[in-house]
C-alpha cells in the first residue's frame, strides 16, 4: 500500500498523429497522486482534463511517457479492476433495476448472486437509497441516478475512483449536497479520487490539491494545495480559506486566459 497511487511521467497525447486531424491534446504532463488523496483537474474546455482521466483509466494510450497506477501499468490496473469510474451522465442501464445496475461490475467479476445482492444492499444504504433497489432508473431523479452511478463505481470497493464531471448536469443545491456526500463516502473508504470539473467551488470544496490545466496543448499550469484539511463539512464553504483558495484557482485560470 506504500508508494503513490498514480504516477504520470512526462506524458504526451496526440490524437490522430500524422493525419490532417492531428490534435496535440497533452504535452509533458507530470503528476503524482498519493493514496487517499482527492485531486481535481480543472481547466477550460479542450484542455485535455478528460484525456488525463482516460489515460489513467487505460481507455486511451499515451503517445509518449508512462502512467503507473498502484505501481503497475495503467493497462494492468484496468485488467485488475483497480478503479471505478463515473461520468457526467449517470449511464445507468435502463433495462436493469437499480440494484442490478450496482451489481453489474460484480456480475462481470463473477461474484455469486448472494454476494452481489449483499453488496448492492450495502451500497444502496451507503448512498442512502436503500428503498430504491427494486426501482427502475427512470423512476429516480437525476441526483439519485448519479448516486447510484457512484454506488456502482464503488461497488467492488476499488482503491481509486475516476470521475468525469459527475455532478455537471445537476442543479446547484443537489450538487453541493452530492459533494458533501461523496467526500464522506470516499474518506470512509479511503478511496483515492481523481475528479474532473469545470467548477471552481466544487474543486475547492472537494480537493486536497487542484491541478489547473492550460489548453492546446494541455499542460499543467499550476497545482494548488487546498488548506481546508480532512473531514470537512458544508461549513467549509464559508471559511475564509475556502474563498482564498477559490480566488487562487480563479487567478490561475485567468492567467491562462480561461476565467472571466
Amino acid at each position, binding site marked *: 500500500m506504500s508508494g503513490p497511487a498514480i504516477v504520470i511521467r512526462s506524458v504526451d497525447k496526440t490524437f490522430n498523429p500524422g493525419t490532417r486531424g492531428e490534435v496535440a491534446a497533452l504535452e509533458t504532463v507530470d503528476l503524482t497522486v498519493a493514496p487517499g488523496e482527492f485531486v481535481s483537474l480543472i481547466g477550460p474546455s479542450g484542455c485535455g482534463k478528460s484525456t488525463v482521466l482516460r489515460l489513467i483509466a487505460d*481507455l486511451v494510450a499515451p503517445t509518449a511517457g508512462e502512467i503507473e497506477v498502484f505501481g503497475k501499468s495503467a493497462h494492468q490496473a484496468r485488467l485488475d479492476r483497480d478503479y471505478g469510474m463515473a461520468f457526467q451522465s449517470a449511464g445507468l442501464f435502463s433495462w436493469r433495476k437499480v440494484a442490478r445496475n450496482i451489481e453489474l461490475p460484480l456480475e462481470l467479476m463473477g461474484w455469486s448472486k448472494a454476494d452481489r445482492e449483499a453488496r448492492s444492499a450495502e451500497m444502496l444504504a451507503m448512498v442512502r437509497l436503500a428503498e430504491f433497489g427494486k426501482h427502475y432508473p427512470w423512476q429516480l431523479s437525476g441526483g439519485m441516478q448519479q448516486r447510484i452511478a457512484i454506488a456502482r463505481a464503488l461497488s467492488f470497493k476499488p482503491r481509486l475512483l475516476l470521475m468525469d464531471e459527475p455532478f455537471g448536469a445537476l442543479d446547484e443545491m443537489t450538487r453541493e449536497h452530492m459533494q458533501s456526500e461523496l467526500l464522506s463516502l470516499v474518506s470512509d473508504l479511503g478511496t483515492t479520487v481523481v475528479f474532473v470539473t469545470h467548477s471552481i467551488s466544487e474543486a475547492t470544496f472537494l480537493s486536497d490539491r487542484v491541478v489547473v490545466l492550460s489548453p492546446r496543448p494541455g499542460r499543467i499550469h499550476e497545482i494548488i494545495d487546498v488548506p481546508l484539511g480532512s473531514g470537512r463539512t458544508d461549513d467549509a464553504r464559508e471559511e475564509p480559506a475556502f474563498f482564498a483558495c477559490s480566488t487562487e484557482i480563479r487567478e490561475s485560470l485567468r492567467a491562462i486566459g480561461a476565467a472571466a
Partner: protein
Amino acid sequence: MADQRGPVIIDAAANSRLGSVGGWARNLGLVAVAVAVMVVAWEGYKAIGQAIGGTWPGTSVDLPVSPDDLTMPHTWSILGALFEPVQRGSDETLAVFLLKAAAFTFVEAGLGFLIGGLVGLGLAVLMLRSPLLDRALVPWINISQTVPLIALAPIIVTWGRTTFLGDTVSVALIAAYLTFFPVAVNGLVGLKSPSTEKLELMRSYAAPWSKTLIALRFPAARPYLFPAFKLAATLSVVGAIVGEISAGVRGGLGRAILDYAGRYTTGPEKLYAAVLGAALLGLFVFGMANLAEQRLVNEGEEQPR
C-alpha cells in the same frame, strides 16, 4: 453511421407503445371501426356504382373497378362463402379449409422468421465485430433484396427437392430471404446504439467483447430489433405465400389463392375469403411479435405516458 448503410427500416422512437388494459379495449374498438368503415365503403361503392350504371355520370367512361357482383362480391357473400362446403359434396367448410391452409403456411412462415431472424442477428453481430466484413457484406445484403423473390423461389424449391430438405423448409428459406434483411440492418444500428460512456464503462470493468455484447449491446438493441421483428413477421407470411405460389407447393394459403384465382368466374367470394385469410394470418403474426415486444421491451423501462 446509420446513413452510410441505407435507411433504418423503422425509427425506434416512432414506435408507439400501447400496453395498458384501456389501450387494449381502445385498440379493439379501433379495429371494429376500421372494419365497419371498410365494409361501408365497399358496399357504398357497389350500391352507388350500380345505381349509376357502372360509368361516370354523363359519360361512357367506366368506373375504375366495376361494381358488379362478380368483380366485387357483397361482403356478406364473402362471409357466407366461409361457411359453405369448400367443394360440392364436401363436409369441410371453406373456413375450416382456410384455417388448415393458414396453419400450414404459418409453420413455413414461422420457420422462415426464425431462420431469417437468426441469420439477420448473426450478420449484424459479424458486421459489428469486423469493419472489414461490414464493408464486404453491406452491398451483398442490399443487392439480395433487389432480386425478385418470384424468380428465386422456384430455384430454391428445386434445390430443396434434390436434397433432404422438404418443400416446407424450402418455402421457409424463401420467407427467411425476406426476413433477415430488416433484422440485420436495424440490428446493427441497435447494437451500435450504446453511448461511448456506457461502452467505456464496460471497458473500465475489463469486460470482454462477448460480455459487452450480451450485457449492453443486445439489451440496448431491443428497441431497434423489435420493430424489425414485427416487419419480419409480416414479411415471413408474404414470403411463404409467394414461395408457395411460385414453387407450386400444395396445402397452404398460397396454393388456395392460386386455385381460387383460376376459378374466379365461378366463385369470386372464395378468392376474397382466401386473401382475407392471408391478411388475418399476417395480422396474427404481427400481433405475436407486438406482444413479445411489449413483454420484453416495455417492462418498466420508460416512463409510461
